[in-house]
């Protein structure tokens, strides 16, 4: 792991919805191989940053560089192909597909076989299919999901969150972005999640984490970025951010 390199760089992001400035000149960097947390009160623009990175909507201004290449104007699926995977704030799995199928969709970015291969059941496609299946089962087992053939929609919230993370991991990302993975989890479950994230981080996957649970954030992240009302108010290691006056003001409301 090379220290000090930057995998993702956001420069001067601006986004306006109607009259509301959601992102106002946001710049920050995500160091390679580290866990970076993006925090801030509700409505600070955290999810908007994620959406902008993944190409859900275009930015008004600003530039996003991933490993030195601009992501601007790329469609969402292209962003995934570059090596960025994400989860969603309120779990969004494909409820009417099985767990395994959910995770196998995640392999899309790294596989190629298309309509013709599939229609004609060509050998190349069959080989790829076996690989996808194997890779997905591995990811599922690693995250400790036991029911791979049940419908994803019938799982508990924790189970669904795991499926979502597994789906993201299946695309073999270099950068994994998690949108409030701990919300709705119990203390125990959050601890398990923290362990899992650290383990993922150790495998060399950079993590960008949006989270409200300060214990989790401060416990596992190497770097913290704080947003408030669409503006960046602090950026640095967790210890220094915790002491920052503006952060305290934003969180305590004084």
């Amino acid at each position, binding site marked *: 792991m090379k220290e000090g390199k930057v995998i993702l760089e956001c420069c001067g992001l601006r986004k306006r919805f109607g009259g509301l400035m959601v992102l106002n000149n946001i710049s920050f960097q995500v160091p390679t191989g580290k866990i970076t947390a993006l925090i801030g009160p509700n409505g600070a623009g955290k999810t908007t940053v994620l959406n902008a990175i993944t190409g859900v909507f275009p930015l008004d201004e600003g530039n996003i560089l991933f490993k030195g290449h601009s992501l601007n104007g790329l469609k969402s699926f292209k962003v995934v*192909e570059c090596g960025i995977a994400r989860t*969603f704030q309120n779990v*969004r799995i*494909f409820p009417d597909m099985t767990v395994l199928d959910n995770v196998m*969709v995640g392999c*899309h970015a790294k596989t190629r076989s298309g309509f013709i*291969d599939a229609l004609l059941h060509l050998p190349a496609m069959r080989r790829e299919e076996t690989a996808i299946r194997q890779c997905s089962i591995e990811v599922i087992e690693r995250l400790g999901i036991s029911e791979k053939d049940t419908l994803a929609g019938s799982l508990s919230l924790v189970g669904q969150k795991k499926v979502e993370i597994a789906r993201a991991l299946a695309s073999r990302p270099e950068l994994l972005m998690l949108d409030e993975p701990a919300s709705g989890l119990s203390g125990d479950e959050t601890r398990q999640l923290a362990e899992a994230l650290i383990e993922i981080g150790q495998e060399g996957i950079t993590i960008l984490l949006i989270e409200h649970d300060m214990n989790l954030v401060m416990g596992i992240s190497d770097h913290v970025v704080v947003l408030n009302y669409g503006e960046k108010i602090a950026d640095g290691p967790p210890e220094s951010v915790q002491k920052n006056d503006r952060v305290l003001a934003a969180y305590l409301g004084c």
Partner: protein
Amino acid sequence: MNHIKSIHSPACQIGLFAILVQGCALLVRNSYYLFVLNIVGINIIVVIGLNLLMGYAGQISLGHAAFYAIGAYLSAILTVTYGFPAWPTLFLALIITAGVAYVIGIPIMRLEGHYLVMATLGFGIILYIVLIQWDDVTGGPSGFAGIEPLHIGSLTFDSDRRFCYLIWPCVLLTLWGSLNLVRSRVGRGLMALRSDELVASCTGVNTEGYKVKVFVLSAVLASLAGSLYAHYIGFVSPGTFSFFYSIQVVTMVIVGGLGSLWGSVLGAALLTVLPEFLGIFQTYNVLMYGLVLMVVLVFFPEGLLPGLWFALQKTHRKHR
């Protein structure tokens, strides 16, 4: 486990189905029933294509009669007026349909919900009017006659029984390909797209590309059915390709079950044959058709085949 798996493999299911159809075709002596069987086959091809679009990609088309018409009229006009050979024309028609579907698919597949319904409907109506008005080329409302039957070497598919041996392999191939498709990477992508378009896109599925491609595929299947129809009947006229046919195939998809390809086979067969039986109700046949349709949709919304399957499982469980 292995035993169950083999039953679930497309090739095996299709093999069984082929034997069944073959059995029917051999048992039937009367060419009327063969004719009905052939029309069922033609409809199945259109309906399977449409189900890929509706049941897997979650996009509606109320204009599929147009693609059916493009295939039929291209085969008719190019072979009769310009003397093209039949088989290459059929493939040319498929390519042209694919081109047309691609060009209009790009803007149309960006639309959602009612707007998508309207756009496909509008396209169908425009093409229908062109068929009627451009009568120097299409023969206008009186239709276009004199299309020769297809042949391979010295085998001409000119009788109902012979055509049966042409159309059903086509149906089985379509079914095989489609079953392969839905059980592949692409199929999963399509299902993800139907379930949640935005998330699918953020998971790496090229949703826009998939939508257009599956639209093209379903158009191509409709075009294939159209070409086969033209060579079978030997005559095409706009009446076959009206808005009502578009509605009819959508109905077949839904009665059979969205996303259930075998359901589509049943849906197409049932709704093609049903009016023949309803003939005994004479003036009440229209009314009965509407009634049957409503009852099925009210009580078996997941489609007839999946619905019956669930019901069967339920009673089975109760007995245990």
